């Protein structure tokens, strides 16, 4: 194929092309070289290059897809986390409210129990005080009676003579009769 081309170039050089200032031989040779190079490139280089580029493109596309997926997953995870957080907050609020209610109930119960206990203690103290007062009254009454009896006895022993005693006995007999 090269030989007819050179022949054609040799023939052409003598014709009008050379009149344009173009070296036909050189042109043909360069064309052939170009074609050879083009062939080589298309046959061995371009496919590999294209494959490599395609692989890279695919890799990039995969990466992008992966990134998109990751982002979506992240968004979903964030949404889910938000939901979980909200639910947890709601649950925490409920638990807090329940705990507060329970605490108030416990405090109220405690106050009631304390109040009852206080009332009971006061009642017991009052009862004890009443008993003590009664005991003191009784003791005082006893002591007073003893004092009166002793004093009366002393006075009577000093003052009661035989005549008065006789009158007393007569009156006693009348009372008995």
């Amino acid at each position, binding site marked *: 194929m090269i030989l007819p081309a050179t022949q054609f170039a040799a023939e052409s050089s003598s014709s009008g092309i050379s009149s344009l200032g173009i070296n036909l031989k050189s042109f043909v040779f360069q064309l052939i070289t170009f074609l050879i190079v083009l062939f080589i490139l298309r046959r061995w280089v371009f496919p590999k290059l294209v494959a490599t580029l395609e692989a890279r493109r695919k890799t990039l596309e995969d990466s992008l897809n992966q990134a998109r997926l990751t982002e979506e997953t992240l968004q979903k995870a964030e949404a889910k986390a938000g939901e979980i957080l909200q639910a947890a907050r709601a649950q925490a609020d409920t638990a807090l409210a329940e705990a507060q209610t329970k605490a108030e109930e416990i405090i109220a119960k405690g106050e009631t129990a304390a109040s009852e206990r206080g009332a009971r203690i006061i009642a017991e103290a009052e009862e004890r005080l009443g008993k003590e007062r009664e005991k003191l009254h009784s003791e005082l009454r006893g002591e007073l009676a003893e004092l009166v009896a002793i004093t009366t006895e002393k006075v009577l022993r000093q003052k009661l003579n035989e005549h008065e*005693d006789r009158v007393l*006995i007569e009156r006693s007999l009348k009372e*008995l009769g």
Partner: protein
Amino acid sequence: MAGLSRRQLAVYAADQLLSSKPVPAIVRELAAVLISSRRTNQAELLASDIGWELERRGEIANATVTAAHQLSALLQKEVSAFVKKSAKVRQVIISQNIDRSVIGGVRIETAAHSWDKTLSRKLTDIREVS
């Protein structure tokens, strides 16, 4: 009579006394019973039982009168009349007992009855009531 109770002995003695049996004879009989039944320590109690039996039958009451001063004859008569009426007996024997601790008033005790109108009793009542 060895197996007789003190109460039965008292009834027997009262019967004998009221039937005008001599007192020394009755006393000897009772003493024999008490000795044979080894109850000589119950002699005073038996005498008291006899007094109680005689009083129960309305015959005689032995009244012990306790006072702080000696009772006049008039007062003794009044006491005797009172006991006759109250114990419903025909005869009263008065035994007087002087006890300064009674302060004033009189305490009369028979085998079956007791009346205490002494001042010491009244003072004790005051102490006990309070």
